[in-house]
């Protein structure tokens, strides 16, 4: 027990370090890019154009229908066979962004559709174009509806970054495995890693709550 405690303490910093230098930046960057992809896909879905909407549909279906692990494999190990060799970090960011894009597209679509049609029309009637109405009127209101599910997706993403080790990104879970390989205490190490994920998620949930609170204030009732 005592040596377990020692091991726990010893592994805490390396794991935290891996979280700070790899898992978290990977999640944050991918999420930011992914949101942009998601918005694009959501707009394509609502656009009314059959072609654009179908493209987005297929994209979303493939992303949601296939395991993330396989997506990582294909980009990192499959692309070189068609002459495209991408480094681990860029690969990871591409895959996680595309994945986030697929998952969050439906969230954003639903959020945008949840804003009453009258808000679009009110935007038009004060002279705004479609695009300006979207950015100035619709998205700020859609945000309130979108934040909780987006935060879910973000929390999932943080945990999913553990898969990046398969394409040579040395994130936290990989670090835990490395330590386990020497000590054989996989339960302890995995639980420690889980604890760190949990702390991150608690922070994110707190952030979500405060964000929701701020957006709540001025939403139509």
């Amino acid at each position, binding site marked *: 027990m005592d040596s377990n405690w020692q091991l726990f303490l010893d592994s805490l910093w390396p794991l935290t370090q891996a979280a700070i230098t790899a898992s978290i930046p990977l999640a944050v960057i991918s999420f930011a890019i992914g949101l942009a992809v998601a918005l694009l896909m959501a707009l394509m879905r609502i656009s009314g154009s059959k072609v654009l909407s179908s493209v987005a549909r297929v994209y979303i279906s493939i992303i949601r229908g296939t395991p993330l692990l396989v997506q990582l494999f294909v980009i990192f190990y499959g692309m070189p066979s068609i002459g495209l060799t991408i480094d681990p970090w860029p690969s990871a960011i591409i895959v996680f962004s595309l994945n986030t894009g697929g998952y969050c597209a439906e969230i954003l679509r639903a959020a945008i559709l949840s804003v*009453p049609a*009258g*808000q679009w*029309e*009110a935007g*038009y*009637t*004060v*002279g*705004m*174009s479609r695009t*300006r109405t979207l950015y*100035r*009127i619709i998205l*700020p*209101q859609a945000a309130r509806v979108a934040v909780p599910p987006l935060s879910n997706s973000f929390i999932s993403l943080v945990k999913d970054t553990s898969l990046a080790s398969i394409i040579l990104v040395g994130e936290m879970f990989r670090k835990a495995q490395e330590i386990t390989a020497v000590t054989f205490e996989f339960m302890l190490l995995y639980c420690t890693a889980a604890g760190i994920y949990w702390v991150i998620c608690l922070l994110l949930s707190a952030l979500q709550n405060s964000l929701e609170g701020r957006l709540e*204030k*001025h*939403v*139509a*009732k």
Partner: protein
Amino acid sequence: MSPSNQAASLLTVTGLHKSFGANQVLKGIDFTVHTGEVVALIGPSGSGKTTALRCLNGLEIPDACTVAFAGGPEVAFSAGFKPKQAQILRQRSAMVFQGHHLFPHLSVLQNVTVGPLEVQKRPRAEVMEQATALLARVGLADKAQAYPNSLSGGQQQRVGIVRALMLKPDLLLFDEPTSALDPELVGEVLVVIKELAQEGWSMVLVTHELAFARDVADTVVFMDGGVAVETGPASQVLAAPQNPRTQAFVQRLLHPF
């Protein structure tokens, strides 16, 4: 208040047709609004009043219609019409919605200035001055910094009216501006509209408040089944309607039970 026949015509709508799928909602409506005139559209639910009004603001694209504002633009809707062209109509007219549709994430002041500042790009100082004056005008001087949520329905609708006025339109469009309000709050909004009419604003007004229409409107257009069944001076159409359908409708609203 009745405009003389010589008053300049501000808007001429000719041959307004609109279908939703197989449902032919407007079957060719013509009417004219003179400068300073108040036209009331009345008629049973589903007769196409809202649709007609929305067409004037380009929120609905008619299947066929010519909308001509004095001094241009004249917009001819036809098959190949692009939604973007509708924007030029919005430079001449402004809509006040039934459900006001204020922007809930913007303050009252931002609600009424976002159009002039960000779309019309008018100078900030001038816009602020106008906003302050108009808000005071409708009794909301102290609400400039409030958010729509914290206002009563009547206050919200008055902000909606100011938002439209801020655009300096030639024509105001009202779609049942009091029908979503508490009965007690109806009065405060009607009073504002009545004053605007007296100040000489041109407006088209869809309403179920027949007493109000009789008081404020110069011309009444009674619509039924997508057709303008009866058009004439308010006093005549509402007090002594000629058409049996108009008679039945007026009767039903004035004596409901």
